[in-house]
């Protein structure tokens, strides 16, 4: 067990990576073997990450130096060399969430994508997405963050175009690829600016020697803009509606977590790398602005949509706004110890909790949209109706997701939103009122979906529709279970998952000290 924990950071990336390369080959032995390998790899990764998370909670930050005889030996010559993975409570939490969603997506895909060709490549890409996400959240090295970002972008771009026979899917993938390349280029440029000045790539080491020069400010601007683009913040959200709606439905759920990985990178860069920079408050206000725009424009653009996946894609933008709002408030008061203690840390906890919750309820909603498409073959809400008669379990899952995203009690969305509302109210009541208004509009939008797709008399064209297969219900059930669990026991979720993550982000010294 101690071996797994000691090598946990490397194993968590290596297991899905090896499985990704193996699945196209194993595919030749049959679909069941391929599905089994993908599922087993993700289950194994989940187990490793659970152990790693428990270890990080009890022992603090865990570092892993690739290729070193002693994995914890990060600075053999006085400064960090080699690829170093650094896992604190924030990284471990995000890794755990990423793999849980990937696992649900894998189970769901076994039936949803069963009749499709090229499934060996599909699972390979899904596993590569997992590798990219885990790499971003666990690396302690800025250049490796760029590499994993590229792995994530290329594999997710390829899988968005999975329905290559549809022109729209290829177009969405093209847009995603261009946007990802532009963002990644800026990240690389920022890395170059920092490496050119300090001869360092390690985040902790860089944070320890940062001089806050003009070039550092440019690097900060490039990194914040690039990660805001990748997480789909307004006005950089234009790619989201295309990519989310054209990707296979389970991949849309995975794309939500991909956005969360970008948000993690934004958190890490702002708090750990540039947390001590005097102008970080300005960045906080800028992020608050992006958050408010994302919340409002996301939800108002969602309401008129009649393509169910496009509607949900705009809601993903809107929910990202809540996370940015909490993060922005935390950053804006970072230099003020009293404000951080009284409401800043709660705003950050709310933002981190909402990241976890968003991955769960948005993932569930995309899977229910997939269930509708699987049985009816259409995404157009104008053509749907009366599905609750034939798909009662899917309807229940949709209701759970709908109430959760709208922030209605007792679901998890309410727990994280109340943390954001109250802490943001202490900062600026207007921002809090906007956030509450957006929640009301979110509910209005999902009431429309619920009424259009599920209510009403049974339609003639859907008389043969029945409930989706068990594998798809299990995948939705996993996410619904966590939504209810975190909704009913938010104190335990905050105490064991969220609070340690928020404290880890604020403890820049711990992160730096683990390396240097």
């Amino acid at each position, binding site marked *: 067990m101690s071996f797994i924990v000691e090598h946990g950071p490397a194993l968590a990336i290596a297991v899905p990576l090896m499985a990704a390369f193996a699945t196209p080959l194993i595919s030749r032995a049959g679909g069941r073997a391929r599905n089994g390998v993908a599922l087993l790899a993700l289950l194994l990764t989940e187990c490793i990450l659970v152990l790693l998370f428990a270890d990080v909670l009890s022992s603090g930050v865990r570092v892993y130096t690739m290729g070193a005889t002693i994995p914890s030996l990060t600075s053999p010559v006085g400064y960090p060399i080699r690829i170093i993975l650094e896992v604190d409570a924030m990284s471990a939490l995000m890794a755990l969430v990423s793999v849980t969603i990937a696992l649900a997506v894998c189970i769901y895909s076994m039936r949803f994508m069963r009749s499709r060709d090229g499934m060996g490549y599909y699972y390979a890409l899904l596993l590569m997405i997992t590798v990219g996400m885990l790499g971003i959240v666990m690396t302690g090295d800025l250049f490796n963050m760029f590499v994993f970002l590229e792995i994530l972008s290329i594999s997710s771009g390829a899988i968005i175009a999975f329905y290559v026979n549809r022109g729209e899917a290829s177009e969405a993938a093209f847009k995603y690829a*261009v*946007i990802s390349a*532009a*963002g990644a280029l*800026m990240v690389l440029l920022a890395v170059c600016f920092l490496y050119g000045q300090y001869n360092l790539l390690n985040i902790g080491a860089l944070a320890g020697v940062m001089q806050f020069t003009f070039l550092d*400010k*440019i690097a*900060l*601007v*490039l990194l*914040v*803009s690039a990660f*805001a*683009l990748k997480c789909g913040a307004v*006005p*950089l959200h*234009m*790619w989201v*509606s*295309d990519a989310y709606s054209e990707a296979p439905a389970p991949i849309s759920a995975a794309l939500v977590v991909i956005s969360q990985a970008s948000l993690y990178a934004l958190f890490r860069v702002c708090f750990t790398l540039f947390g001590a920079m*005097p*102008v970080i408050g*300005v*960045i906080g*206000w*800028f992020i608050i602005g992006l958050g408010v725009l994302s919340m409002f424009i996301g939800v*108002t*653009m969602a*309401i*008129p949509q*009649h393509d169910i996946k496009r509607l949900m894609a705009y809601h993903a933008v809107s929910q990202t706004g809540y996370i940015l709002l909490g993060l922005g408030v935390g950053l804006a008061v970072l230099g003020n110890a009293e404000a951080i203690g*009284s*409401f800043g840390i*709660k705003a950050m906890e709310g933002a981190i909790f909402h990241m976890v919750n968003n991955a769960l309820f948005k993932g569930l909603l995309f899977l229910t949209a997939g269930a509708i498409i699987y049985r009816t073959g259409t995404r157009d*809400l*104008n053509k*749907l*109706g009366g599905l609750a008669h034939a798909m009662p379990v899917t309807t229940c899952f949709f209701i759970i997701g709908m109430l959760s995203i709208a922030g209605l*009690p*007792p679901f998890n969305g*309410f*727990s994280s939103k*109340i*943390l954001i509302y*109250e*802490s943001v*109210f*202490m900062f600026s009541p207007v921002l809090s009122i906007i956030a509450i208004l957006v929640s009301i509009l979110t509910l*209005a939008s999902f009431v*429309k979906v619920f*009424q*259009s797709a599920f209510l*009403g*008399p049974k*339609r003639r064209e859907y008389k043969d529709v029945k409930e989706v297969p068990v594998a798809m219900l299990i995948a939705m059930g996993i996410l619904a279970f966590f939504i209810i669990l975190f909704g*009913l*026991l*938010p*104190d*335990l979720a905050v105490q064991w998952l969220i609070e340690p993550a928020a404290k880890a982000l604020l403890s820049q010294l711990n992160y730096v000290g683990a390396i240097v």
Partner: protein
Amino acid sequence: MIGLLKTGTGFWNPLVWVAAFFVTALAVYIIRSRGVKKYRPGTGQTMPFFSGNRPPEDGIKSGNMYWGFFEALKRYYKWMRRLHTGIVNDYVFIFVLVMVLLMAAVTLGGLL
């Protein structure tokens, strides 16, 4: 106390909310069960309420909903549609614009 989430300025307990919900649901059920029990199929009693009009036979479509909301915000939506061109060049332009704005904000913030 299990389920008690401290929010900084207050608290939230979903388990108490669930208990209150069930008590309220029970009260509603009891009141409802004391109501009129007669059911006349084929009359207006079984029709969905549609502001006094006869509802469309194939139900209310999603496109019919929130007409007043869209009418009130017509200019906003017209502007939004114009911004969402779907052209990737525009996306990259906005990205560059955001970088410039952020750089200006950081530079000015540093001077203040």
